[in-house]
């Protein structure tokens, strides 16, 4: 028993799940997004009319659907972590696969949204609102892709039995990153699409 407990991926009690290094990255990213959100809010304060008007041009429904997609995807990742904690590698990989697929749905919906905006001739230089809208969403979009790549690596390793009840820090690390991507959209959606 004692030898077994020594080999478990037990991090110090009280620290968040996954590798501590990812949490530095997560908080650095959250900080960058946070400053961007604040900049958006204050830029809006100087341009309320423009922001309110331009906001109406956004596709709120696709933003909301994407929120649902990411929330659900995040939940699937929670199930993946739960599965590996039971030693169920296959289930873990399947839940991750489902989460990645939903990430793909997010990407597709977002691409339709971008396509509509770009074909209307909207770019980063159209006005301050669109500068923020495009910067924030594209920056987040790239994070979704990065998150999917990370989850794909974790899934591949899970599928080949690379994780176990004792050793699954990698799953938790990828999961934590993916939840961060979700968290950012949870703030971004109301801020950019709803609040007026």
């Amino acid at each position, binding site marked *: 028993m004692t030898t077994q407990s020594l080999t478990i991926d037990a991090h110090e009690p009280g620290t968040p799940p996954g590798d501590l290094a990812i949490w*530095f990255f997560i908080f650095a990213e959250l900080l960058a997004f946070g400053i961007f959100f604040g900049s958006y809010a204050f830029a809006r304060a100087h341009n309320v009319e423009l922001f309110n008007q331009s906001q109406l041009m956004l596709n709120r429904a696709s933003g909301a659907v994407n929120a649902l997609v990411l929330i659900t995807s995040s939940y699937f990742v929670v199930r993946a972590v739960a599965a590996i904690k039971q030693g169920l590698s296959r289930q873990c990989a399947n839940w991750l696969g489902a989460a990645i697929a939903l990430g793909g749905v997010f990407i597709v919906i977002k691409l339709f949204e971008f396509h509509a905006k770009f074909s209307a001739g909207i770019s980063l230089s159209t006005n301050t609102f669109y500068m923020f809208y495009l910067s924030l969403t594209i920056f987040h979009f790239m994070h979704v892709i990065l998150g999917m790549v990370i989850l794909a690596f974790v899934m591949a390793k899970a599928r080949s039995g690379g994780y176990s009840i004792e050793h699954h820090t990698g799953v938790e690390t990828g999961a934590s990153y993916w939840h961060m991507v979700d968290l950012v959209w949870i703030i971004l959606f109301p801020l950019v699409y709803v609040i007026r």
Partner: protein
Amino acid sequence: MSQAFTKSMARNIFFGGATFFFLLLVALSFDTMQVLPKRDHRENITDAVARGKNVWEKNDCIGCHTLLGEGAYYAPELGNVYKRRGGEFVKAWIKSRPAEGTPGNRRQMPQFNLTDQELDDMVAFLKWTGEINTNNWPPNIEG
């Protein structure tokens, strides 16, 4: 026992983060390249402007002056000098620098012995530079 904070994870974050943000820089630069023609008015870069830039570089003007705020801080900003002083003044000024310097311990500008052609080119370059959309920098005409 595996650690809660591993070197391999730190390394992955380094490579992943660096690649990610470099790609973002490339993407933003791509957009910038699309927008720039509207801001730098490159259709106005005549041969004279191009030659003028060469004269600017050959005499290391940036070693004393700033141009759009970049360079040395020893002598006035020249990005807006065309607006501030006009082309004729610029030419007369460059031409009239005494080779041995001006009296008193004022800051000195060398005599560069530019030809009339080079002076015209330089002014064309400075005029074009003054028309770049710099987001309203500098704050006032003094540069």
